């Protein structure tokens, strides 16, 4: 358990709670006349969240910090895969499903382990091709298939 994370989180949750209360107050003016408007539920929840985050903040002082062993995290492959996923998402609609999926899978396979690149090529090609074929041709779904300039 990381106490620093909990403290930051409790402040964040407190802010979210306050923001929701303020947001619901602005809604109240546009309500339709009944005393039970659209603002009542979110403002109750916001208030509860504020109370709970104060409680969480208080709890972080009650528990002693356990300094557990720091696990070694694999940041490099994670960052590569994260960025690859982000690129995949952002280019999906312009370059199309088949090409982006193929590249994304191949990059990730190789990031996970730099071996078996022929097998990686085959699996990425099969996955992107099969999913596109079965979804668009067989099930008649919509996917951006190929680059828009095609």
């Amino acid at each position, binding site marked *: *358990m*990381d106490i620093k*994370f*909990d403290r930051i*989180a409790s402040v964040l*949750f407190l802010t*979210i709670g306050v923001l*929701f209360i303020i*947001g*619901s107050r602005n*809604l109240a003016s546009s*309500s*339709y006349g009944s*005393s*039970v*408007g*659209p603002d*009542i*539920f*979110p403002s109750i*929840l*916001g208030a*509860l*969240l504020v109370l*709970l*985050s104060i*409680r*969480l903040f208080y*709890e972080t002082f009650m528990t002693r910090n356990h300094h557990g062993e720091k*696990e070694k*995290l*694999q*940041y490099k*492959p*994670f960052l590569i*895969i*994260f960025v690859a*996923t982000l690129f*995949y*998402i*952002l280019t*999906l*609609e312009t370059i199309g*499903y088949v090409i982006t*999926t193929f590249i*994304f*899978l191949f990059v*990730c*396979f190789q990031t*996970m*382990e730099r*071996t*078996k690149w022929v097998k*990686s090529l085959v*699996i990425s090609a099969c*996955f992107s091709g099969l*999913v596109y074929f079965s*979804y668009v041709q067989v*099930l008649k*779904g919509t996917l951006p298939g190929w680059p828009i300039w095609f």
Partner: protein
Amino acid sequence: MDTLDYLFQGFGTALIWYNIAFAFVGVLIGTAVGVLPGIGPMSGVALLIPVTASITGGLPPEQAATSAIILLAGVYYGAMYGGSTTSILLNTPGESSSVVTTLDGYQMAKKGRAGSALSIAAIGSFVAGIVTLVALILLAKPLSAVALKFGPAEYFSLMLLGLGAVSGLAGKSVTKALIMTICGLLLGTIGIDNVSGIARFTFDVPWLYQGIEFLTIAVGLFALGEVFKTILEKEEDEVHIAKINNLLPSKDEFKESAGPIARGSILGFFVGILPGAGATLASFFSYILEKKISKYPSKFGTGSIAGVAAPESANNAASGGAMIPLLTLGIPGSGTTAILMGALMMYNVQPGPLLFEDHPQVAWGLIASMFIGNIMLLILNLPLVKVFAKIIQTPKQFLIPIIIAISIFGVYAVQVSTYDLLLLLGCGILGYFLNKNDYPIAPIVLGLVLGPMVENNLRRALTISNGDFSVFLTRPISLAFLIITLLWLIIPFLMKRRGKEVIINVEG
């Protein structure tokens, strides 16, 4: 028409060729999900929703809903069967409800009795599955009849009970679990308000008007969160699978496990009905129970077959029991049933007391298909257990990226929006950090699914009472639900104060 007629009609639905195929695919994938340590039943079901949505796209709405829920429920109870395989053979539970099975299962495998442990686990799961189904059939009608008499005030309190129970048992810290529940409920308020038609918290962003899709959140938090965890905390695990010799247990072993299976089924069923207490708790409780009443408690932990039979029956029974509040009351008691409920709602089928009247085909078709699915699982798990044990050797190199690709495909296929994909990725990161710091994730999804219904019932009750909050306290049933909710939250807290160890539900 009475229950039996409905059941026969349900079999009529479940025995249509494509529904048999759906049930088969469901339990097959479910077993695989149970075997793979990286994916739990929750992310398995969440990942498959979009896939089933696109496969069933050609069917009329009600049939599509039936087929989809048959497949998804198959994944859910299939995972309970599969989880035992790795617990016994590898000493690594495939999912949290099989943690206890490792205690005795792996010891049995070490002694060369892996075969009998596996088959007893499968037989126990099967018996439990059938027992809970019979109970489900008997209880479904009377329970939904009672629930039909509930007004909005009772419903609101009942839902609070569901949410409170899940939060009370969901993690190490009740505060954190409650915060997660509230966050889920708050996420559910984003979008156009159903009652007044006012856009709330949308900041004039058109994408937010339809609200936040539960599917995106669920897939992101569970599936991607687990994927990121696997990448970041890469473990070099040596896979050492115990050998499976003879599959059939001996007569003595049968005799020894008959009692535990029966007790495990019944206990598991009742634990499963309780909101918040899912398969994990059920397996723990039944193991403890068996150890207590056993003549030789010292044998537990050294390869006692009762220590495999009881928890494996119990977790399967609990997954069946959890369907009861979902189908009859519309209250999911765990993360996975919340996802199942979200899936039904995507098809415009509202689980709850009216389900059995409005959509008997869906309800009874599902129940009948669970019979068929359990038989399939028994057949799949006995002779084919060696094949499934091989699944665990799937290299992570290929598995992890493909899970990401399926998540992205699934969310895009249903939502067709890049914003949802970005939200998915964000939820993945969030899921990893929340999970790492003991913030349970299941309550968020539960809150998101139940949120709009909680709010509608609250507002209906308050409108009837002219804004007077005491309506929840003056109606006896509603008051009873509220008191139970409070007790549920306070008792574990008090027990912790006294220094007692409280078993929590990690599965969610």
